[in-house]
């Protein structure tokens, strides 16, 4: 059946069941469910991305597999649709750019490769022929011809950002930026890029990003950290929402025999640490095992579909450390929160009535 990925939303149940095995896997992989945590972070992100907001460095941090990349990609797609619908098609501008920070095996961060990636994403011409100008003592000269120098690419990048009217630059897998580098040097560069080009920089990554963004006073004033939380098994509301997600995915199961995952939602929540991304990975693996078994389901597949205990504990530890680290430091956790907020709300309400 000649079905492309773009036609997945329009497929009926019969058509989904008639897909090839490979297409069924693609189908479930592409399937995404809107859930409360995603919606909450998306709403905050949209407010912070408003042009009237002074924040120009945003970081979305969270556990691995919680859905950060899905959110950032969806955000960019939606921003593009909004841009095209509201302002008409301005063929000369590139308001939104999305890149994934490279991990190229070097012992230190390669700003050249990051800048090149951004320029290529913006369809920039002659990236290997850029030069930079030196203005000194009333003279303007070209830096001696060594193309692709860092300064030349940086200069070209700033010019591109201004002339293409870039509004938002998303750098996914941003923890690659700090794997080997000096934190303050990295943040200096990023802050300067955001200031010079007047763009909003959105970094997406794990809890490691928190140290990058929060430990630098110069940046802290213009930066916000959004915590994409996982679902907590100890909170009934989170359990209900997680169960709803499982039920939704179950409703689109691309095989005739649909396993009853909703009944074991708490166990699945435990196995995926409350992260919807990890849940999806688990279910995808389970699907492949079911397909290999000609559509027959065996609960023992879950043993292979979920992460091993040691790995799971390792991830759990990292998540817990990260959650402790970011407590009190993320967007919304200000002095006006908790009990104090309730008191203030009462005060303001009563003064308003009087």
């Amino acid at each position, binding site marked *: 059946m000649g079905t492309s*990925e773009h036609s*997945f*939303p329009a497929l009926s149940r019969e058509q989904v069941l008639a897909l090839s095995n490979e297409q069924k896997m693609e189908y479930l*992989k*592409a*399937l*995404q*469910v*809107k859930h409360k945590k995603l*919606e909450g972070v*998306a*709403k905050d*992100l*949209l407010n912070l991305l408003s042009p009237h907001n002074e924040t120009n460095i945003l970081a979305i941090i969270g556990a691995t597999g919680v859905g950060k990349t*899905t959110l950032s*990609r*969806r*955000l*960019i*797609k*939606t*921003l*593009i649709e*909004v*841009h*095209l*619908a509201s302002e008409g*098609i301005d*063929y*000369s*501008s*590139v*308001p*939104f750019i*999305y890149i994934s920070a490279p991990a190229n095996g070097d012992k230190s961060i390669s700003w050249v490769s990051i800048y090149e990636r951004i320029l290529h*994403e*913006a369809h920039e*011409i*002659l990236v290997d*022929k*850029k*030069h*930079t*100008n030196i*203005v000194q003592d*009333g*003279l*303007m*000269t*070209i*830096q*001696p*011809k060594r193309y692709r120098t860092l300064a030349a690419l940086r*200069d*070209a990048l700033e*010019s*591109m950002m201004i*002339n*293409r009217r870039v509004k938002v630059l998303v750098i996914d897998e941003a923890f690659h930026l700090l794997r080997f580098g000096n934190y303050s040097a990295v943040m200096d560069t990023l802050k300067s890029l955001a200031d010079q080009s007047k763009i909003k920089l959105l970094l997406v990554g794990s809890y490691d990003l928190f140290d990058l963004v929060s430990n630098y006073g110069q940046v802290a004033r213009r930066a916000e950290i959004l915590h994409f939380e996982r679902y907590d098994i100890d909170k009934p509301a989170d359990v209900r929402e997680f169960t709803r997600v499982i039920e*939704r995915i179950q409703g689109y199961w691309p095989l005739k025999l649909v396993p009853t995952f909703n009944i074991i939602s708490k166990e699945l929540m435990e196995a995926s640490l409350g992260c919807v991304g990890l849940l999806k990975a688990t279910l995808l693996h389970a699907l492949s095992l079911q397909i290999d078994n000609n559509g027959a389901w065996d609960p023992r597949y879950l043993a292979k579909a979920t992460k091993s205990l040691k790995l799971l504990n390792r991830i759990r530890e990292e998540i817990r450390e990260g959650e402790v680290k970011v407590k009190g430091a993320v967007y919304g956790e200000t002095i006006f929160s908790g009990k104090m907020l309730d008191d203030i709300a009462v005060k303001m309400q009563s003064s308003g009535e009087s």
Partner: protein
Amino acid sequence: MSILDIPDIFFETGNPVCLPKPTLLYATKPYGVGTWKNESLKSYVSRLAHVHRVSPSILITNVLLQHPKLQNQNWKNGRRSHINNNIDLITSGSINRNFIDVLEEATAQKNLNLCTMIPLSNILSTYRLLSIRDRHCPKCLQEDIEQGCGYSYLLWSIKCVTACHIHRLKLVNIKCGADENNYLPLSRRKLLPGICATCGSIGYRCQTETLKEAREDEVWKAKQIAELVSLFPQIDKHFSKDRTITGLTDIINRIAEGIVWVVASAAGLSKSVLWNWLEGKTLPSLDLLLNVCFATKVPLVPLLQGKPFENDSIIKNKGRKYLLWGRGNSFAKFSREIARQQRETLLLEALNAETPVSLSSVCLDMNVSRRVIVEQFPTLAHEVALRFHEYQTSQVRIRECWVRNLCDNAAYKLISIGKPISRSNIRHAIYPHTLSDYDIQRFLKKWKMEKMGMKS
């Protein structure tokens, strides 16, 4: 639609997120379109290359000339070397028109033809319309640089504009006045309006040419052309060849009672030239047309619009006497005398210049042929040429001595370290100086001959 309108279920295919592919180049707008400060296309292309952080020649060669529309043009056959000299970018030929089409498509701009002479191509002759030299008004440029946008005006490219009508100063040739030691190597030179391409000085501050006050007729001519340039966006509506003919006919009828040769001789043209214009056989040249306007006191723009006397309530039947200029002299005689004085001044300046200049370059500056100068000023021309010849000969001798000394020292150095005297060894030995293969070969030949002479 907002981000909160995400459906409950959606499909994320993992394909790259991207907008529709943008224009090839940035949508940089040309400055001053619709005003007398209209930017020239060369200046625009230079600025476009600057924002892309590449050189203009690389932008044109590697990007624009790759377009199928420009694939078979003469651009590829050597004329590409003229890109940085620009004159090809503002003419009205078919090559330039295709180039502009490609540039407009690449930048999503629609009015780039207004930065060239294309709007005038059906109205005036564009033959020798443009100046070979780059010129500018230093004060206008300074004002623009202070506002953050130094660029080159299209007006300054027109040959018959020799002054700035705002500051009443003669236009200055863009020529580096810095010491030769301060010249930049080619790889470091920046090609951008307002920047000296030789030494990099911002605002051409290296120039030593003194500002001179312009004559009244120069200021008047510049003003007329400036008004014409400011009307480029509406040129199709208000100007045409037929209207120009109507305007000329009206002038001849009202001022010279229909006698063509009166107007022609007053303006310093031949009768046949004016007849050809009136019959539509040839397009008027701007320079000569301005002479007609100046002689008859008619502004250029109303003439081209076909209504030369629309705003003039005094003109009525002025007759032949109106064409007299000064006391019993015609305009033609007046302009010839002015031109003669100018040439004599330039020749005297060349004769007294610190560094002698060639007679050919002086003729080029004056825009007259060498024959005319030699006929009008035989003694002065001979002195200028002789002075330059002596200077050139002495410079050649000085250089020959320098090359000889350099190579001799290199040869003795090689002998002392036991290396053979070959071309490549000499080249290494004279580092950091460089000499051409010809110089080194000549030295080697002489060296061998001297050695053979010594042996015998």
